[in-house]
């Protein structure tokens, strides 16, 4: 059977990817952020998954406003890296895990999540930046296959935090019922507090972010109970991306251990954070 070995929550700010692509990680602006990633990256390099289920949102690249799926799962054998309007990131194409995708879609449907499927999907920074956070130097190929899971966080009304958490729980059950011996990592991406447009542009709410970083481990129900309006008010119009962390958290089994976390302001206009949790499994003692 497949199992979830760890969960990674991470911001997916495009400029974090650009800093890596352009060799700027040692610049004074970026060094503190990347130094903060260090211990998590070392641990993850020693705990390689076979597949990463990456929960993210598209940013006007693969999905336009013609059709806006609330939850979608990529089902392809591979995913091209999107040109978001300024050229493709120089990273390898993403290899899919179509069998796991199919399994997830069926199990999620049976759990009353009516999933949109994406057979062709160019993946944007929302997915590739978290992969780079995990693996900064992939060479010719990423070290794992990927199942993209997309959440609409751009068009209002977004799914509730509670529904995202429940989706995560259903994804966790589905992974654990997949009859192949696979190690799976689940990525919850986006956040933390940020707002790109309007007079509140530049909003950072460290108090909320710190609360969230703690509660994602100890009290996810509290975060699931917040309304989308709460997220927008506290974390900014784009900070609502944090609901995708709850998908990751829901997919973890009962016991987990925090391996590392880091919080840094700013990554361009965003509070950037990473939190890494080892999944200790149902029967384990924490």
């Amino acid at each position: 059977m497949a199992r979830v070995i760890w969960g990674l929550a991470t911001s997916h700010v495009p400029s974090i990817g650009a800093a890596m692509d352009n060799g700027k990680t040692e610049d004074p602006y970026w060094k503190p952020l990347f130094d903060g990633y260090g211990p998590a990256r070392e641990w993850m390099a020693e705990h390689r998954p076979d597949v990463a289920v990456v929960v993210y949102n598209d940013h006007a690249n693969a999905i336009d406003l013609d059709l806006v799926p609330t939850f979608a799962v990529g089902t392809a054998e591979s995913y091209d890296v999107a040109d978001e309007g300024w050229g493709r990131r120089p990273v390898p194409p993403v290899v899919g895990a179509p069998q796991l995708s199919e399994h997830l879609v069926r199990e999620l449907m049976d759990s009353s999540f009516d999933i949109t499927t994406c057979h062709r999907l160019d993946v944007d920074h929302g997915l590739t930046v978290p992969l780079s956070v995990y693996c900064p130097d992939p060479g010719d190929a990423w070290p794992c296959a990927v199942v993209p899971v997309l959440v609409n966080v751009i068009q209002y009304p977004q799914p509730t935090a509670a529904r995202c958490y429940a989706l995560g729980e259903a994804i966790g059950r589905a992974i654990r019922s997949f009859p192949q011996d696979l190690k799976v990592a689940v990525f919850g991406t986006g956040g933390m507090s940020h707002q790109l447009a309007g007079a509140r542009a530049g909003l950072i709410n460290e108090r909320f972010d710190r609360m969230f970083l703690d509660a994602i481990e100890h009290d996810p129900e509290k975060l699931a109970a917040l309304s989308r309006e709460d997220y927008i008010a506290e974390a900014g119009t784009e900070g609502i991306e944090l609901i995708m962390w709850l998908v990751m958290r829901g997919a973890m089994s009962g016991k987990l251990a925090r391996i590392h976390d880091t919080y840094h302001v700013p990554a361009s206009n965003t509070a950037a954070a990473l939190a890494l949790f080892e999944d200790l499994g149902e029967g384990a003692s924490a």
Partner: protein
Amino acid sequence: MTAQILDGRAVSVAILDRVRREVDEFAAEHGRVPALATVLVGDDPASRTYVRMKANRCAKAGIDSHRVELDAAITTGELVSRIRELSADPAVDGILLQHPVPDHIDERAAFEAIEPAKDVDGVTRASFAAMAFDEDGFRSATPGGIMALLDAYDIPLPGRHAVVVGRSPILGRPVGMLLLARDATVTYCHSRTAGLAERVAEADIVVAAAGRPRLIRGEWIRPGAVVVDAGYAGNTGDVEYEEAAERAAFITPVPGGVGPMTIATLLAQTVRAARAHQTRRSRGAVPVRGEAMTKARDNYLLDLAASRQGYALNRLCGSLKDEENRRRFLEDEAAYCDAYGLSAEQRKAILERDWTAMLELGGSIFYTFKLAMLDKKSMQYLGGVFTGMSAEEFAAAMRSGGRKFG
């Protein structure tokens, strides 16, 4: 015979009236007025007075003047970077660096920091070259003013012998070239000229631009000549006025001759610069800073109503993820907009890069950002637009922990 006065003050009033009407038309068409940035370094009283006079004239003509006053101790590098900012500032149409600047500053370097399209005082190499080749460009203000004054009095120029006394790069040299371009026969005289009296005596037109009070004696002036005195030492010209006025057919007084024409030329060129600037903007070459434009609300939610309203605009911006579309857009922005069925307001917001108006009209930042990236504008720039800051100020606010609310 007593010379007729070349009344720069009266002529400049007429020019400024015309400028005022042009400003009104410009404002009606574009919803803003032309803006001139004046840069004063140090506190030389004469320079301060000139800048104040220019600002007053701007106000009378309806031109927005934006005064930048810098400490005398500023370095060349600091001055250059300040002027470059003004050159890049979409809210500025024209730039005047009041000269002379303090001795320790490399004046040429400072002048060259002025974007030629904003060089309304005509001090850059680019402006000089355009003038020398008799091409479109901004005239150095005093020479341009002298030509306008001669024209106002219908002084014939072709074939006539003009003697220019002085060869500074923003006065003597250019005025000689402008006269040459109008088919005068031009002689340049300067401090090393032998027989200055004889040269001046051969002139049909004398332009005194040496900056040496009463250098040119009235008795040198050929009877019936035209005398233009661009001397600028206090209120004394380069020409012995009373004596010269006895012989000349036309003469400029000091003050009230060339001086007012310089300012009028500066202002007329500022309006021209603003028009050209606006044209570049509407072609999209120069995005516009937000504070002059639509004011942002706190939050923009892309709800379903906004999604409906902004559909065409977002679709257009989204299409820019394709390289071929980016090329086509840049080739003809207006035509590209027309193909996407934008509302008139949306079209205007796109063409004028009114980033806040785009949001008001249903735009989503994830879509409009693609247009910003095409303009090489960062999310910090946009943040600055929405919050009334420069990109640098906004980035600094982020570095210091972001903006806090509640």
